[in-house]
C-alpha cells in the first residue's frame, strides 16, 4: 500500500476530531447492531423494527420543540414515544391479529407525519433534515458516551439472555411449556431494539436509523447461516461501511449518514451476488 493511499485512508481522521468521534460512534453502534440485527433477522421482525425506528420521531420532535438540540430531550422523548408505540402495536397484534401488517404500517406513517408536522411547526428545513437523516459529524462526546453506554448494555444483555431470546423466536410454545419466561423476552428484546434505535437516531436520523442495524446483518447472512459467525461478520461489515461511508462523504462532500447506509447497502448487494453462487445447497426434501 503506497504512502499516498494510506494518507487518503487515514488522513481525514488524523486531521479532524469530528471525523474521529463519528468513526468511534459508528464502531460502537456496529458492535451492538451486529447481534441486534442478526437476532432481528432470525426472529423475522425487521418490519417491526422499522416501525419502531419511526416511532422515535414524534417524541424526539417534541423534545426538540421544547429544548432544541438537547441530547437528553431528544433521547428521552424518542424512547418514550417508541415504547408507547411498541405497547400499542403489541395490543393491536393481540386484539386484531389479522390486521397486524396494516396496523404496523399505520403506526409507521402516523408517527412519521406527526413528527414532521411538529418539527416543521417550529424548526427550519435544516432542522427537519437533521431529525430525518441525522448528522453523524455532529456527534459530540456526550452523544458518544450515550451511544457507547447503550452499546455496552446491549451486548451484556444479549450475552446473558441469548439462549431464551433465540428460542423464543424459534419455538415460543416450547419455551412457555418448559417455563422459560415466554413473552417477557419479546418485550426485553423490543426494549433493546428501541434503545439502539435511539442511539442511532442522533447519527442517522429517524429514516435511516434502521439501516446500520439491518443491512450489515443481512449482508452477513448471505455468507453464513450460523449465528455467531453472522454476528461477528455483521459487526465487521458495519465497521467497514462506516469507514467507507465517512471517507466517501468527506471526499465527495456528501451527507455522511446516507453515505454510510449506502456503503452498507453496496456491501449487501455484493454479498447477495457473490455469496449466492457459492452457498451450499441444502439437501433433503425441503
Amino acid at each position: 500500500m503506497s504512502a499516498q493511499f494510506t494518507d487518503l485512508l487515514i488522513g481525514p481522521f488524523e486531521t479532524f476530531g469530528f471525523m474521529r468521534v463519528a468513526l468511534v460512534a459508528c464502531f460502537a453502534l456496529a458492535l451492538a447492531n451486529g447481534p441486534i440485527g442478526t437476532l432481528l433477522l432470525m426472529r423475522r421482525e425487521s418490519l417491526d423494527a422499522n416501525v419502531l425506528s419511526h416511532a422515535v420521531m414524534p417524541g424526539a420532535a417534541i423534545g426538540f420543540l421544547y429544548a432544541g438540540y438537547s441530547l437528553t430531550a431528544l433521547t428521552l422523548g424518542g424512547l418514550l414515544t417508541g415504547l408507547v408505540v411498541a405497547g400499542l402495536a403489541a395490543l393491536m397484534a393481540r386484539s386484531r391479529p389479522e390486521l397486524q401488517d396494516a396496523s404496523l404500517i399505520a403506526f409507521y406513517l402516523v408517527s412519521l407525519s406527526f413528527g414532521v408536522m411538529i418539527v416543521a411547526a417550529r424548526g427550519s428545513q435544516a432542522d427537519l433534515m437533521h431529525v430525518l437523516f441525522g448528522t453523524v459529524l455532529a456527534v459530540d462526546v456526550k452523544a458518544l458516551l450515550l451511544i457507547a453506554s447503550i452499546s455496552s448494555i446491549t451486548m451484556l444483555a444479549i450475552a446473558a439472555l441469548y439462549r431464551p431470546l433465540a428460542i423464543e423466536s424459534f419455538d415460543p410454545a416450547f419455551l412457555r411449556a418448559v417455563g422459560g419466561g415466554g413473552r417477557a423476552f419479546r418485550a426485553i428484546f423490543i426494549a433493546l431494539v428501541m434503545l439502539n434505535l435511539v442511539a442511532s437516531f442522533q447519527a442517522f436520523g429517524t429514516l435511516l436509523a434502521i439501516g446500520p442495524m439491518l443491512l450489515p446483518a443481512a449482508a452477513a447472512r448471505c455468507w453464513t447461516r450460523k449465528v455467531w459467525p453472522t454476528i461477528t461478520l455483521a459487526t465487521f461489515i458495519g465497521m467497514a461501511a462506516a469507514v467507507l461511508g465517512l471517507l466517501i462523504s468527506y471526499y465527495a462532500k456528501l451527507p455522511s449518514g446516507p453515505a454510510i447506509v449506502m456503503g452498507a447497502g453496496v456491501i449487501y448487494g455484493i454479498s447477495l451476488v457473490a455469496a449466492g453462487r457459492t452457498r451450499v445447497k441444502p439437501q433433503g426434501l425441503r
Partner: protein
Amino acid sequence: MANFFNRVRRLQSLSDVVSAARTAAAPLGGWLAFSFLAVARSAQAAFSRHFDSGYDPSPSSGRLGGAREGIVVRNLSVRYGERYAFENLTGEFAAASLTAVIGPNGAGKSSLLKVLAGVIRPTSGEVICSALPLHRLAYLPQQDELDREFPITVAELVALGAWRNFGSVRKVPPGLAASVHEAVAAVGLLTVIDRPIAELSVGQFQRALFARLLLQDADVILLDEPFASLDENTTEDLLQFLRRWRQEGRAVVAVLHDLDRVRQYFPSTLLLARVPIAWGDTSISLAGDNLARARKTVGPADGRIGRAA
C-alpha cells in the same frame, strides 16, 4: 456439537456473577457491599421467578416413585369470536394412557391440544393438570408452526429438551452431551446430528423433535398430527415411542387422521366434532354410528373418515 456446549458453558451463570461482584465490592466497605449484594440477590430471585421458573434439575416424578398424573377437563369450551372450536368436553386423559383425538377438519382438535398445553385459555370450563405448572408437560405443535430456516443444529434442538437442567441462563450440566447423543441415537439421526435443521427432511425433523421429547421426560405428552406427511417407516418407528411412553406411565394424547392406525395402536379414542361424540375404548368410540354422527355434526365430511368408516 462439542463446540456448542463449550460456548454455552462459557456463559457465566448468575450466581457466578454475584460472587464475582462480591469479591470486587469487598474493598468498598461493608455497607456498600451489603446493599449491592442485596440488590443483586433480589434481582436474581425476581429473574428466576419470572423468566426461569422452568429450572428444576430434580428427577421426574415418575422416577421418584411418585405417581404421574394426567389431565382432567370439566365442561371445557373454546370459542373464537362467535364460532365454537369445541364445547362441553368433560373427561380424563389418565396417567399411563394413550389416547387418539380424531374428528373431521375444523372439529376443534388442535384447539383442544392448545388449551390442554396452556397455549390458549379456555372460554369456559377448566383444565386440571398438575404437570403444567411444574413444566412436566410436553406439547408438539404441527410442524408448519415452527421456523425451519432457524439456524440451529439437530444436537442443539434436542438439547433444548433438557431445559429444566439449565433454564434460561445457567450453565449446561456436564452430562448433557451424552444424553443428547443417546436420544439422537434412539431416533436414528446420528448421521445428521451436527446438521442445521434446515437440511433435514420432514421425517428427519419429526424424529429430531421426538428426541427432544425423550429428553423432556414429561408426565403429559400432547402431539398435534405427529405423523402428517411422514413415510411408513418413520411413522412405525415413532409409534413405538408412543407405546413406550404409555408403559412408562405418561399420559399421551395425539391428534390423528388415520383410523386404521388408531385401531391398531391406540387403546382409547376421543371422537370430537365440535362436541364430544364419544370418548373411551377405541373399538366403541370408532363404531360406525359414532363416525356417522361426527360427520353430520360438522357438515362436509372429512374424506379420510368417510372412507375408513
